[in-house]
């Protein structure tokens, strides 16, 4: 290897290391810091007499949209309202008892299972508990 080649390679390598040295903190800076969601893993969503049978209430849970549905038999279901396809918030269609995504047309049944794509994964289910007159939603793990 000639001295010129050696210097060329050393300088090129040095410039590459210097570039990485500058870019690395910039990329790390752009990645948002993680948010602790522990404090929000149980929320009071509604009161017993607030929802009529076969109606829904949207709320924010774990920093994402969620929905509480009162079934015709009086039971409650809580699910993530974030469509598993590309993240739009689903709407509740009372007449058909389904969740429908207005963005790309995915359909989910009342348990969150996919009835029609393009979504491939079900909506996340949450646990519902009633304490006195108040309805609470927690993650499934939390209740277990």
């Amino acid at each position, binding site marked *: 290897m000639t001295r010129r080649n050696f210097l060329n390679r050393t300088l090129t390598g040095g410039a590459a290391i210097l570039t990485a040295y500058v870019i690395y903190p910039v990329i790390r800076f752009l*990645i948002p810091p993680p948010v602790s969601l522990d404090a929000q893993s149980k929320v009071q969503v509604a009161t017993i007499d607030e929802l009529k049978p076969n109606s829904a209430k949207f*709320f924010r849970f774990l920093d994402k949209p969620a929905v509480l549905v009162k079934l015709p038999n009086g039971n409650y279901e809580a699910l993530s309202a974030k469509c598993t396809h*590309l*993240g*739009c*918030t*689903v709407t509740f269609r009372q007449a058909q008892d389904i969740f429908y995504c*207005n963005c790309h047309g995915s359909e989910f049944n009342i348990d969150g299972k996919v009835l029609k794509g393009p979504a*491939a994964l079900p909506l996340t289910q949450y646990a519902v508990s009633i304490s006195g007159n108040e309805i609470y939603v927690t993650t499934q793990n939390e209740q277990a």
Partner: protein
Amino acid sequence: MGQMMDFFEERFDLSPVRNWIRHKSVPQHKHSFWYYFGGLALFLLSVQIITGILLAFYYSPSPANANESVRYIMEHVQYGWLIRSIHFWGANFLIAVVLVHMFSAFFMKAYRKPRELMWILGVIILGLVLTFSFTGYLLPWTTLSYFATKVGVNTPMVMPVFGNFISKIMQGGEDVGAATLTRMFTLHTVILPLVTLALVSLHVLLSQVFGSSVPLSVKHVDGETRFFPGFLLRDAAVWSGTFAVLVAFATIIPANLDGKVNPIMPAPAGIKPEWYFLFIFQTLKTIPEMAAVGVITIGGIVWLMIPFLDKKPSEGKPFFTLLGIGVIAYTLAMTVIAYITTAQN
């Protein structure tokens, strides 16, 4: 004017500039009409920059104030509605003109040697113009803009390895929110303008170096028109006419402003993106998102590399012309299907 020229003449050697002005010319033939679209795109980009700077005087990029500040521009600032409407329609005009410019260059095979880099820069500039539109869409903080951005930032998630990372950087958090708005604002008003101006300058510089490409099908060139003043005056006439149409659109159909988004509520019925993103929207609806993103990404790379794939454009083989027709047919078909299906829902 003369005194000002004398001032510069005494200090700089302007003879190369004078020579360049004297000799710059544009070939005249049956397809010369298409040459106007490059200059027109440059003019519309200038309109966007000027109206964008004006809007930035009043716009406030926070979820609490964004929608209100745009409403303030529309309802209280003098001619605010006009400036914003020109910016809105200008974006639509710019994308349409850049598309026409690109496809005319494609069908005239203007990408052939030595203009390969011009083509690559042009395709990247189209991507930047579309990114301008995407990042600007969230800024009014309306329901439609919120969900359009949600879909946009969630789409890269399906890409292997870097998908999640790209999505997180775009979003600035777990969901679309205040951090997303400031990121989109920074991209829209600082990063994209700087990158676009640099690449457009290079694109224009190369067009000065190589001159206008004459299509292979043109066997007879009807002479050359001097750029100064003949072609430039015609250019100015095209710009004036387009600006008149743009102002007419802005005045007759001003940009609307929906209410502020409530991030908890469902996406509204009939939601769909602007016309230039409809083919992507329909593709995502029709095939699994991983396949859709793959098709669009590979399609974009192939389109970018056209000058190197079409190795012998002078042989006049119709494959690449048919490919271009196929791309247009696919885009139009998906766009029409998207309009129809959204209306039905």
